[in-house]
């Protein structure tokens, strides 16, 4: 009997798809009994009957505190000038060895611990990493929002998102996340993107992949200028993007919130809007889609027309 047929039978028996008696029909009986004896024995084993005891941790400081602990002595003098100049634009948090950057309403640049890689964060986007864990072959961070990454060639560079992971080997690329999905556009070099659904795609320059609802949605070509348009000329552009992604960008760019309960979200938008005029942007996006919009208190209510 072919080796792979035997392997398949063993696999099916292990997973419970076929019984031991059925296995005995496909491989020599004595061999089947040996496997059964081995499995019966190992299944009862454990390295240690005692469970692993909980580690000794320190209680977290209250969430309200902006600074949880002081990491370097230079923090105080840096903080003083930062407070005066930049409270309006970004805050910067040190907590034991964890570093977080969050852009409020302006683009800010953050440099990674390798001193050469960087990310530029669009409004309402954040990046964080652990200084102590960072190594030249283990560059690990967590990201949400819209950002343009420039990564120096080196060891592994991984960015974790809510809905997937981006693995990089020296390249520049844009990540755009929103509630239900994300897209990654490669500008130079090469990038590997893994969605939580298990799909993995390698992107070369000029290629973009999007995930929506935890599923791979599509691969596209796009014109890879030097940088994304939100970085080079204060414009957001979309090519056949899910409406949810466009709305998320509007929310972050203009700091508004939308009520979308009365519209079909299953639409796409192609076009662009500048960041300096909310009314123009609303007109561009929603008129084309036959959606009416109305400002009610702090909300913009959308309706299918």
């Amino acid at each position: 009997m072919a080796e792979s047929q035997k392997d398949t039978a063993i696999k099916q028996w292990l997973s419970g798809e076929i019984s031991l008696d059925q296995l005995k029909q496909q491989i020599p009986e004595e061999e089947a009994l040996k496997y059964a004896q081995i499995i019966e024995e190992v299944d009862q084993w454990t390295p240690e009957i005692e469970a692993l005891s909980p580690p000794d941790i320190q209680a977290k400081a209250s969430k309200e505190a902006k600074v949880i602990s002081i990491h370097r002595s230079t923090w105080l003098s840096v903080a003083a000038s930062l407070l005066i100049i930049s409270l309006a634009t970004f805050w910067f948090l040190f907590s034991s060895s964890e570093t977080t950057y969050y852009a409020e309403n302006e683009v800010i640049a953050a440099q990674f611990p390798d001193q050469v890689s960087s990310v530029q964060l669009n409004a309402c986007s954040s990046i964080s990493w652990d200084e102590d864990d960072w190594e030249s072959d283990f560059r690990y961070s967590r990201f949400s929002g819209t950002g343009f990454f420039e990564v120096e060639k080196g060891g592994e560079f991984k960015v974790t998102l809510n809905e997937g992971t981006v693995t990089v080997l020296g390249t520049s690329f844009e990540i755009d996340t929103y509630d239900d999905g994300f897209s990654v556009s490669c500008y130079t070099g090469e990038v590997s993107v893994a969605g939580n659904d298990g799909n993995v795609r390698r992107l070369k320059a000029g290629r973009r992949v999007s995930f929506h609802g935890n599923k791979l949605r599509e691969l596209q070509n796009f014109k890879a200028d030097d940088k994304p348009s939100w970085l080079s000329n204060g414009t957001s552009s979309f090519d056949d993007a899910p409406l949810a992604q466009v709305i998320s960008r509007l929310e972050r760019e203009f700091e508004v919130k939308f009520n979308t309960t009365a519209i079909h979200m299953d639409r796409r938008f192609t076009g662009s809007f500048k960041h300096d005029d909310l009314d123009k942007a609303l007109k561009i996006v929603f008129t084309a889609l036959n959606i009416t919009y109305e400002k009610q208190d702090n909300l913009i209510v959308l309706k299918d027309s």
Partner: protein
Amino acid sequence: MITEEHDICNESVFQEVHATHGDALRNFLYYKFGDLDKAKDVAQDALIKLWNNCKSVPFDKAKSYLFTIANRLFLDNVAHQKVVLKFEKHTKSTNQNEGIQPDHVYREAEFKAQLEAAISALPEKQRVVFLMSRIDKQSNQQIAEVLDISIKTVEKHITSSLKSLRERLDELKDFKI
């Protein structure tokens, strides 16, 4: 937005993560490196790191974060030593007092010790996958995710392990006079 029950910075959520993954983590390190005390220490260190980084790690990535960090911590300061694994038994065999089991081909005496030795001698990847499957009862999908390999590879490792173990035990059996 992170819901409260998925916020690792919430102490009770963190304890839940520890309770769910702590043993499997310790076991994984033991299967791979063969040093139980060190496995326990490193498992705890990895959990502490997770706590310190609770803001950076999404709840559903906690497990793979723990396994990745623990693996690195272990590798950071160990030279390759020969792996010798020993195990305790959860349940006493109900047939203990009935003498020889009719279905058993290998003799009871020394069977456990020989099987432990055979498992220790398996190639590392096969050994780790096999034990995570049978002892920690992880699904093929879960193992594939944690070790970052395909499900097909997981299946292959398990089947290869079983066949190697049988061959090894047969050798030992045949050498007995």
